[in-house]
């Protein structure tokens, strides 16, 4: 895990919290906001996972 991963973590957290807040908000019919930010949270979680996926340096192909 390096800085690339840790910089995406707050994005996932903020978007998830916001999605939840909009899903529970009793005003303005803002469920669309919840869907979009919720989708974004899941997407960036997956992208953060891709940042963790790494072959060890000693097994890297030459070049």
């Amino acid at each position, binding site marked *: 895990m390096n800085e690339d991963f840790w*910089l995406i973590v707050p994005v996932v957290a903020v978007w998830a919290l916001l999605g939840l807040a909009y899903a529970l908000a009793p005003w303005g019919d803002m469920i669309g906001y919840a869907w979009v930010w919720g989708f974004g949270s899941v997407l960036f979680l997956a992208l953060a996972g891709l940042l963790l996926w790494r072959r060890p340096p000693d097994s890297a192909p030459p070049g």
Partner: protein
Amino acid sequence: MGSTYKERFAALPARDRRLLVAMSAAALGMLLLGIVGGLLTALARGGLIDILPNTGYRLLTLHGVSIFFYWLFIAQAALLLGFAAVEQGRGLLRRGLAWLGFALMLAGFGASMAGAHIGVPLLYDGAPGLGALTPSGLLVFNLGYLLLGMGLLVLPAAAIVTLLTPRWEGRQDRLSAVGFALFAWAGFLMVSGFAALYTFLPGTLWALGLGAFPENHGTNWHIVFHNMHYLPLMATVILWYVLVQALTGVKSVFGERFSKIVFAMYLVFVPPTSLYHMFLEPDLPGAVRVTGSLLSLFVSVPTLTAFLIIIASLEIHARGQGGRGLFGWLRVLPWRHPAMSALAVAVLSMGLGIVFAFVLIQERLAPLLSDTFFVPGYFHFFTVGTVSLTLLAALAVMLPALGGRPLWRPGLLRWMPWLVFVGLLVFGAAGVAAGYLGVPRRVIDVAYQGQAPMLWQGLMLAIAIGGAVMASALAVMAAGVAASLWRGRVPVPASAGLTVDWGGGTPAPGVAAWMGPLSVLIIVAAMYLFTALGFELMQWLPVTASGGGGH
């Protein structure tokens, strides 16, 4: 791998170059089409040409759809793929996904254009209420945005795979600042694609007889709109960062990690600030309005921080090249390259855009100004002056390197951004003034059978003249950049003399860089001034505007 962007683009495989050229050509064509639509609309509003109101709305639809959705996003997609492909110097991976995404976007453009010519003109937000009498038009129009959304979901995956493969293969420990920025940009493009699907699917299903009428389209539109106008701003700042490196060789003096933090800040700050779009909703509780107002203050924090990094880095290096005085360092910048002029105008336009954006998003002013000409008056500083000129600047760097043809008449093109800016200042000043005076937007004839104040028509005439200057200069700039789409017969000389390379020098310690902080200070002071002016005018004038659907 070459050390400069020019060398790296020139070394891309032919298959990558074909894709990037095709996408750039499509984007520039859409820009030119949208400029024609915008120019005719402005002339009609100014009373310089006489067209039926319905034709005017159709032209306005053509303008907004072509530029705001397709030019901005296909150009972004092309530049994302291009800079991702050269980031590791190994070309694009999963190219099939990129072609598929591009094909979906092109098909979307065709459908959107067809939809704009069927039934009632829907304007760029495709409000189902307008299309209720002609569901077939709404169906075709929405199909365009759905295809665009699908394209935006698919295409960035190619950039992500390209950026991360060296890491997966254990050849890279961490992304560069540019690589991280491209990675974040790609993710945000995908989220925006999803937002477009979420917003326009209900109307499509209704038009097909498969769903209920989408009563809440206005609320859903706000969220796609929020994404669709912040994403180009994020792209703009990333491209400034890359272009400064391409034109001068200068990298951030604050280090790669700090740049990554700023790019990540975009993604952290953008969602919470979306609340201000709801200020026009009558049932929004007071506490939520206050919260939205406070959150909206954060909206430009990442943009201004990135601006400070770039300007400070540039100023420090320029002073190392002999630049003296508060403004004297600007003289040593590579002004012979049209991209440098475009960047300068983009920065100035962004400053003005931010000032007026902060006036508009205040809870008390938003309902009064949102349906007036204030909105197009201020947002052209962003869409034209800031984003479009930045995208053109990036294409002016990428396309000549891809095609091996020198940039067409750089001595002429470098003046076009300034001419755009002159037109924009006239258009923006008249537009903002018209908004303060209550002139409605989206109305082709504001004379109201002679009942409207005389000043309104005078301001519309100024808007038409400013718009004509802005559109003409932008069209010349776009056409000039498009000339690089044709592959050159003779390779471009190693140094065309348009750029400088200050990257090798280490800036002397203790060099002061005042331009960035001073600019932010001026922006804050101007925000205060125009907000106070807005309140004063609204209290004194008998004409008031009430918000309906937001922007």
